[in-house]
């Protein structure tokens, strides 16, 4: 007697495995790629698209690429010529910062990373102090390291700054300065004093309604007119002020979102305890509101980080500006694609990891229901 023909008592039938076509690789492929005729067509189309795009890119970027050498002659021009990036690497990273002073930038980088690491360790005890150091102490140290002209360090003028270094300086200064301004503006916008509220609304809406590029134009051509005779601002400083005002307006809206999400009972409870306005905000409302909007702040930062590229239009050579400049060098004409791909990869790594981190935070901070 074989298995198939054996009869079973009711309720004692052995569990049969699911059909082979619904489990394992075959089942997965059937369910996710070839479920309906339309799916089959789409899958084939998508596979064709992948075939069209991916192999040539890999061929160009890796297989046919030139990796070693120091001159243009090392490029066979069949694929990407990464020699170009290697030759210009220092400029792309630091701009025209003097060679013998590069250790100053690197020290600041190391210090920043070393100070920031404990912030990411859950349960580390002195987080507030490290945070305070990063917000107050670190910028001062970094300022003297980068600019010099004190403590026996040589002065390095800002026109020599450039590359990824300049991008990071603008983005970090923008974010660190815009957060407090943004908080004040957000509080002002929710204030019950009509004059304060209207001034804040006007300020926020003005900056949010215009493109960053006009703000940068304004800061480069109008700021000199605003200053009394003889006062001359550094070009970088002017750009920084523009970026700061611009991102403060966006930050204000993010913070306002958090303030609105705090239930009225919290405000009333704080007032019932007799707390003054600033104590109520500083001890009760802002800690909750800011925690809520951390993902929004990170997103604003990502936007700001990408927008720093605009400073090249007013003649600062940031990461992208440097690669544009390198592309106009007569010895290295025709390597635009390699340069753009490298810079794009650089920006992508920064922005993608930040957006992943913000998603992670969103999950972690979701202490609600």
């Amino acid at each position: 007697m074989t298995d198939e023909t054996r009869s079973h008592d009711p309720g004692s039938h052995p569990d049969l495995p699911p059909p082979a076509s619904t489990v394992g690789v075959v089942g997965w492929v059937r369910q996710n790629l070839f479920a309906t005729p339309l799916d089959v067509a789409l899958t084939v189309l998508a596979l064709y698209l992948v075939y069209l795009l991916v192999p040539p890119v890999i061929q160009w970027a890796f297989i046919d690429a030139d990796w070693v050498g120091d001159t243009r002659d090392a490029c066979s021009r069949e694929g990407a010529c990464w020699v170009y990036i290697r030759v210009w690497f220092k400029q792309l990273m630091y701009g025209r910062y003097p060679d013998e002073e590069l250790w100053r930038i690197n020290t600041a980088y190391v210090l920043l990373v070393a100070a920031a690491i404990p912030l990411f360790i859950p349960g580390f005890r002195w987080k507030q102090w490290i945070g305070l150091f990063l917000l107050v102490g670190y910028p001062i140290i970094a300022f003297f390291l980068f600019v010099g002209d004190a403590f026996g360090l040589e002065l390095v003028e800002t026109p020599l700054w450039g590359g990824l270094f300049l991008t990071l300086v603008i983005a970090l200064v923008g974010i660190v300065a815009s957060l407090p301004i943004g908080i004040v503006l957000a509080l002002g916008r929710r204030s019950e004093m009509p004059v304060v509220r209207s001034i804040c609304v006007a300020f926020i809406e003005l900056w949010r309604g215009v493109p960053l590029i006009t703000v940068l134009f304004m800061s480069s051509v109008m700021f000199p007119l605003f200053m009394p005779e003889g006062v001359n601002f550094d070009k970088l400083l002017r750009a920084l002020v523009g970026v700061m005002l611009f991102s403060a307006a966006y930050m204000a809206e993010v913070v306002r979102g958090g303030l609105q999400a705090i239930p009225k009972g919290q405000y009333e409870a704080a007032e019932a305890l007799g707390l003054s306005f600033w104590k109520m905000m500083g001890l009760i409302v802002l800690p909750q509101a800011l925690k809520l909007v951390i993902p929004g702040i990170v997103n604003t930062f990502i936007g700001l980080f990408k927008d720093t590229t605009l400073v090249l239009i007013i003649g600062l050579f940031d990461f992208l500006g440097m690669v544009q400049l390198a592309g106009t060098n007569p010895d290295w004409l025709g390597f635009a694609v390699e340069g753009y791909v490298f810079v794009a990869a650089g920006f992508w790594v920064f922005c993608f990891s930040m957006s992943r981190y913000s998603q992670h935070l969103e999950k972690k901070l979701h202490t609600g229901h």
Partner: protein
Amino acid sequence: MAVETKIAVAPAKPPVWNDPRYRALFFQVLVLGGVVLLGAYLVSNTMANLERQGIASGFGFLETTAGFSISQTLVEYSEESSYGRAFLVGLLNTMLVSIIGIFFATILGFIIGVARLSRNWLISNLAAVYIEILRNIPLLLQIFFWYFAVLRNVPSPKNSHSLFDSFFLNIRGLYSPAPVFEAGFWLILVALVAGIVGVVVLARWARVRQERTGERFPVFFTSLGILIGLPLLAAIVTGFPLSWNYPELKGFNFVGGMVVIPELVALALALSTYTASFIAEIVRAGITAVSHGQTEAAYSLGLRAGPTLRLVVIPQALRVIIPPLTSQYLNLMKNSSLAAAIAYPDIVLVFAGTVLMQTGQAVEIISITMAVYLTLSLLISAFMNWYNKKMALVER
């Protein structure tokens, strides 16, 4: 034991410096005073600086002859035109690229957003890869890529890429056939307008009838028939009064047809592909925000998949989608100012660039440019708010 009873008296008036009303007044006067003082300080500095540099303030310069040419003009413009005319040209170019960008970004964004939700693993992951790559790379870099790396590397007019021998892509731009309207073309336009009016009336009638009797009328296909049929009929009657002027290679360049300058192609391409990645995420979030119970309820009422999507899911998803979509449109419009980096003649390049360089009227020009963007922003938000109100949940 004597019980001391306190007689309730009216609470003592707080001193003036502790009265919230006076405090608020004081702070507001302080803030206002500060702002006014700062403004006065900046204005006086600016006046002094302008006087020293010998620049006359005012808007008189708008009447002066510009003396430079612009590579793309939607209205008549020559070197003899005034700065005011140049401003108009720049403004129209900004609006042109914004509208093109918004149009394509919306279509592409919706397609990719829906693809991201597809049950097909390959399709949804391709959409994810597109979104993650495009939105994490600065827009300016993408514009540079399309312009300098792609469109500057296309062949010369002699070896153009061609499509059906009527579209040509070369270093001078994208050439396409231009429509030539002959006598009698107005009749087709009239037919089209009549068709649109007819469709609106028909749709209204069908809705009233359905509400009264419950009978449905195939509005979509009838409308399609009317919209195509009427102009077609008019075209047959008038003998097809439309011909095409094809671009032709004469010597070193193309003659005839329409040409789209490469700057516009690069800018529109970068703006729409970049913004599409954000719109796709918005669309995805909007559709997932409609709970599955809604679909199940629709099915249990006997609706089929098509009407379920059209009548139940999409109207609810749109409510979630429209507000963030508005801000993406605003972003796209503002980002079109990056045109200046690749010399597309938009308002920033023409007005805040060339005109500012020639006249030195920094304050006036930057203020006008900012005011233009503010106005455009307000217009787009007003329109989208109106649309949002139309789509919003009507709570009874």
